[in-house]
């Protein structure tokens, strides 16, 4: 990996390396940017997604913190509001529950309540999703966050998007929740050699098709694209959209696709109830009539570390294929 090789158009790097690169560049550009997290210093983070930053920027700017999620976010928010720029790493999204008070009750409302006197340019970086770690280390609560006025929420599925969205997050003027997925860290992909941000609120059209629109994000893009491939083999052509940004939500891209296909299936790893899929469906029905819609997500159960039960609870390519075929064949949505 030669990040400095400016001649090639793109380099292939791991997801975790894309994060490191974004952090590195932004920390270089903005001396006020400071990282806070558990085991992000010399250890380099649980997924090595902070590797090398401690050596490059030192203990003042890459700060290990105690297990105190509320204070981690509160301090990150306070420091950001007072003129720094901070990224707070909450290892698992489940533990963001311990920090919703500073995030939601304070940071998300700060600009509003001070009539613009204060803003909190803080990024809360966390990981969602299941990877054998059980009921309290597997949850996806992005739908909660999407509903909070004042928060922006992004969730990349590729190294390129991780890189570009994280850079954008680090230049935002208000709180952003940036969500990785545990299963993405070891994946690889091409990232442009030239530094570039990816604007929030722009979904990516990743596969063209005419029969059905599949909408997903984060790790669920993997089974979604597998399903698209399999469906293609069965003569069902899929248009596939990677949301990337959950708040703001790019309904225009979805709408353009569904105008063509007339059918939409949303795929998320979190709970269906009051989830991303239901929100997209509602907004879509305000834009288009007569669309067939289905949503796919976790079954309504905690996610066990047990591999049989974990698999049973989560969406996979099989379930997506079945759902699409049922929807296309039935009178549906």
């Amino acid at each position, binding site marked *: 990996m030669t990040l400095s090789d400016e001649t090639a158009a793109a380099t292939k790097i791991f997801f975790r390396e894309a994060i490191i690169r974004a952090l590195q560049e932004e920390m270089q550009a903005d001396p*006020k940017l400071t990282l806070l997290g558990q085991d992000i210093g010399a250890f380099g983070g649980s997924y090595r997604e902070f590797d090398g930053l401690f050596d490059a920027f030192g203990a003042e700017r890459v700060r290990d913190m105690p297990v105190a999620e509320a*204070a981690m976010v*509160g*301090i990150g928010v306070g420091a*950001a509001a007072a003129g720094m720029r901070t990224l707070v790493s909450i290892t698992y999204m489940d533990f963001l529950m311990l920090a919703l008070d500073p995030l939601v009750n*304070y940071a998300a409302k700060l*600009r509003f309540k*001070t009539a613009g006197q204060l803003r909190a340019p803080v990024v809360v970086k966390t990981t969602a999703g299941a990877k054998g770690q059980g009921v309290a280390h597997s949850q996806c609560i992005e739908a909660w966050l999407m509903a909070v006025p004042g928060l922006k929420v992004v969730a990349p599925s590729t190294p390129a998007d991780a890189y570009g969205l994280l850079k954008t997050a680090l230049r935002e003027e208000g709180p952003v929740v940036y969500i990785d997925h545990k299963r993405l860290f070891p994946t690889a992909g091409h990232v442009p050699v030239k530094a570039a941000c990816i604007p929030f609120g722009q979904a990516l059209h990743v596969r063209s098709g005419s029969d059905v629109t599949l909408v997903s994000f984060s790790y669920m893009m993997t089974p979604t694209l597998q399903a698209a491939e399999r469906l293609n083999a069965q003569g069902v052509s899929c248009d596939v959209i990677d949301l990337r940004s959950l708040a703001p939500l790019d309904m225009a891209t979805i709408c353009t696709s569904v105008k063509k296909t007339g059918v939409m299936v949303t795929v998320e790893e979190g709970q269906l109830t009051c989830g991303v899929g239901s929100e997209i469906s509602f907004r879509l029905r305000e834009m288009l009539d007569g669309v067939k819609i289905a949503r796919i997500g976790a079954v309504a159960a905690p996610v066990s570390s047990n591999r049989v039960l974990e698999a049973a609870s989560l969406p996979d390519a099989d379930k997506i294929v079945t759902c699409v075929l049922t929807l296309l064949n039935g009178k549906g949505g």
Partner: protein
Amino acid sequence: MSAHELLHDMLLIRTFEQHLIKRRDHGFQLFSSGEEAVSVGLCSVLNRDDQLLCSGRAIGPALARGLEPGLVLAELLGKVAGPCRGRAGRGHMALPAQGFFGAHAVVGGNLTIAAGVALAMQSEGNQNLVACMFGDGACGAGALHETLNIAALWHLPLLLVCNNNQYSVSTPRAAALAPQKLSDLAVPFGMPALTVDGMDVTAVRDATREFSDHIRAGKGPAFLECISYRFTPHSTSARESRPTAEIEAIQALCPIVRLSSQMLMDGEISQADLDQMKKDVNAAVQAASVFAEAAAFPDPAEVLHDIV
């Protein structure tokens, strides 16, 4: 800050609240009457570039920090002339440009935020400090522990000021908190901690000065507990739950009477000067009232301003 100024600032808070309670248009308020010495003693030591954060009991702290009474009143009444255009109100008032980073109505919620502000100051490498006022009630919250620990670890320039007014709403401090002194809570973290008489403005000022010297010298945080008494119920809309005898007894401790009698006795102020000070303060509150009343309510469309 001179004794005259301390007295003046305490009088201003009391007079402001006495004006406010007579109005019908303030929704409800959390008063600092009786507890003026804590805010005023503390703020008398703060520099222009220090920052103060406080709980939802914010009138005393805001005025002590030097915010214009007119601005404060406008904010409390929901007028756009307030520093937050009337949208923060009692619980969330802020004017960071004047060193008042703001109130936050979640009990204990400003503690970690204050530590963050202190981190930002530390990283700027100046000698400013952050003071965070909170109640005895907030001492039951885990946020205090997390803040104490990290502030101590990182030697943050943070002065934690517990305004222990003996109650969290109706709950007596002893029924909610096991420690003998609340300042004991800071001891395990190796930071200086002290409990002082919060009805004695000079005691608060002197302790604050000692701790602010410590903090400005880069030696890390400190914890000051001020024992105070609120003269009114928890809020203007809350039922009084304290025994009458107790309420009567604490009137005798009035920090304003205490300082002014002392000053009169010591010949530091004459009765005439004191009367004049009261008149001046009254006039200032009157002017604030005129200013705030003349100000407009926000346009409903403002509800969508300044969100993301």
